[in-house]
């Protein structure tokens, strides 16, 4: 019964909402005003009509959209052009993207996974290893499910976001926050020899082992979901942060406001100020007609009639009217793009995400890792702090029945800062990271059939998993410089790590890592 009541309410709400939308597409920027007038009580109706008639009060943007309604393609073209320009600035300034593979992968150059998601698609070629015993070479492809689906269906990967949607977020719900990655090992040898520590590893461990290595093989896949954390604007914490944030960015807010207000004043002064008597006469002529319109169809007709009159009046009195309308629309797009980007920084300051990571580590049994991540900016917009917590377990029941299901637990953190330049244009980033992994189960290796059983001269004859390194902690420190190749979307991460051991070999290790990443999202709108 409750289900039917809920469905009825939903249907009723939908019908009410549908009725309140203007049937005349050009009038849709004024949907809110139409709804307000239609639902106003008799006492409030004149006030609601006055609000609509007062273009200069707060309907500049809507009026320009109405004016462009006669030529929507022109308006969309300009809006898309401006949005693309802004989108590129935003993409270039992002510090929360993870293009490379996770630290457990054989070719990773990152000890910490960032919480953000590529806007479209990114690729990474990396050489090195963070927790693995042997270095590997991996190609990693990371993508946004929504953007890739749009691209494959022939639609623009980043959807055009009209002004009315700017604050609601654009893209397909859920899918726009869902990411994936696929990794492939590119090593050409089927085995690699790794030296072991005869003093630290279990008795009978050979001085070197042949580990199964990748050979152009699929080495892992990840599914990531980004949970954003919009702040409660009414909380004391937010109010305090907003005060600091506004003070820091005050000049930018002022510049954006000054630019917009000066263009509006310039464009609308000829009709609002210089011809105020005639403008007021148009308002007064239409007020009784609007008051007399009692149903939606009549009201829409009268609203459009008034706006058409003001439009004709504007064309007659505003020099170079068409270009002036374009400049107003452009000013709004730039204002909203700049200001919303700043507001988004504070409203969605902390990003939480979670991922499932299927791994086929070289020479080891398959594993699954669950990771939660967060990225935030405790020291201002130039730096990003990333934190990861993860757990890994063995997929194979035969392995887990012998050694236990849980392989390891991980905790890591990274602080990354831009070096020089501004938010979008800078030459490099520098980061320091600390990584801790506790091996709950011993490090297992998959030996190929050419190996001998440990401590014997007996050939294994078939592949087998054996415990190599004991359970215990792994500590890793990483310093990384990421060179940014201007606005090309390409970056070169170079890092060095120092660890007390790897997952398989119990001896201190110092290694270098290098990669090449390419983010297609940063190319978007760069022209």
């Amino acid at each position: 019964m409750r289900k039917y009541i809920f469905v009825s309410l939903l249907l009723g709400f939908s019908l009410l909402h549908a009725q309140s939308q203007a049937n005349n597409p050009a009038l849709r920027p004024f949907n809110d005003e139409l709804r307000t007038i239609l639902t106003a009580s008799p006492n409030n109706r004149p006030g609601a009509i006055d609000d609509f008639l007062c273009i200069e009060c707060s309907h500049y943007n809507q009026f320009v959209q109405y004016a462009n309604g006669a030529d929507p393609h022109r308006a969309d073209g300009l809006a898309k052009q401006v949005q693309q320009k802004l989108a590129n600035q935003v993409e270039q300034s992002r510090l929360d993207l993870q293009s490379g593979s996770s630290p457990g992968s054989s070719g990773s150059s990152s000890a910490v996974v960032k919480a953000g998601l590529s806007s479209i698609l990114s690729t990474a070629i990396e050489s090195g290893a963070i927790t693995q015993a042997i270095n590997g070479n991996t190609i990693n492809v990371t993508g946004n499910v929504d953007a890739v689906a749009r691209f494959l269906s022939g639609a623009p990967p980043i959807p055009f976001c009209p002004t009315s949607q700017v604050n609601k977020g654009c893209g397909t719900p859920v899918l726009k926050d869902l990411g994936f990655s696929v990794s492939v090992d590119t090593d050409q040898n089927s085995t690699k020899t790794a030296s072991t520590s005869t003093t630290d590893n279990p008795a009978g461990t050979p001085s070197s082992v042949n580990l199964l290595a990748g050979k152009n093989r699929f080495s892992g896949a990840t599914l990531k979901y980004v949970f954003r954390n919009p702040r409660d604007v009414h909380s004391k914490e937010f109010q305090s942060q907003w005060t600091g944030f506004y003070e820091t960015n005050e000049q930018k807010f002022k510049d954006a406001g000054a630019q917009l207000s000066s263009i509006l004043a310039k464009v609308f002064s000829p009709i609002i100020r210089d011809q105020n008597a005639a403008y007021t006469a148009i308002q007064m002529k239409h007020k009784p007609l609007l008051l007399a319109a009692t149903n939606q169809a009549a009201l829409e007709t009268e609203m459009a009639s008034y706006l058409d009159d003001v439009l004709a009046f504007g064309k007659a009195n505003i020099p170079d009217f068409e270009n002036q309308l374009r400049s107003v629309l452009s000013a709004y797009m730039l204002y909203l793009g700049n200001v919303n980007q700043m507001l988004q920084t504070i409203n969605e300051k902390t990003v939480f995400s979670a991922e499932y990571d299927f791994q086929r580590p070289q020479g080891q049994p398959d594993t699954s890792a669950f990771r939660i991540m967060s990225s935030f900016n405790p020291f201002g917009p130039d730096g990003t702090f990333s934190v990861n917590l993860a757990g890994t377990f063995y997929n194979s029941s035969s392995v887990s029945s012998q050694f236990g299901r849980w392989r390891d637990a991980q905790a890591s953190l990274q602080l990354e800062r831009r070096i020089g330049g501004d938010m979008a244009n800078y030459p490099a980033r520098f980061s320091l990271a600390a990584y801790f992994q506790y091996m709950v189960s011993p490090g297992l290796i998959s030996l190929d059939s050419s190996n001998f059983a440990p401590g014997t001269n007996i050939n294994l004859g078939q592949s087998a998993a054996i415990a190599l390194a004991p359970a215990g902690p792994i500590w890793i420190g990483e310093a990384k410089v990421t060179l940014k190749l201007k606005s090309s979307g390409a970056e070169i991460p170079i890092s060095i790590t120092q660890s007390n051991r790897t997952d398989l070999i119990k001896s201190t290790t110092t290694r270098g890592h290098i990669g090449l990443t390419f983010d297609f999202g940063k190319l978007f709108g760069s022209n």
Partner: protein
Amino acid sequence: MACQLKRDPNGIHRFLAPSGAAITLCVSSSSGLAHLTAANFNNNPATVNDPCVKFTVPNGINFLVITVVSPDNQDTITVSEDCGDGTKTPIDHYAYKPSDPARGFVIVGQ
């Protein structure tokens, strides 16, 4: 000193003020988070001392445009005249629209 802005009964959201009057308008919001970011008076930038803007009304039709920013999309903005005697008189009250942060006022100096 009394407040000087009055509603013009012959216009829609139009205000009257004595010529030469020095007016101070201040912005406040229900969330307490809104800021007055800019103002333009008769096609010239007006000096903003957030949350207030001051200007002198010349004779004739005058056009003021202000821009406000708030992180709260549901904010309600109140524009009040600072009467100079410790009191403020609200002259405008409106729902903040993130997609249109500008608000205009026609003030007739006479």
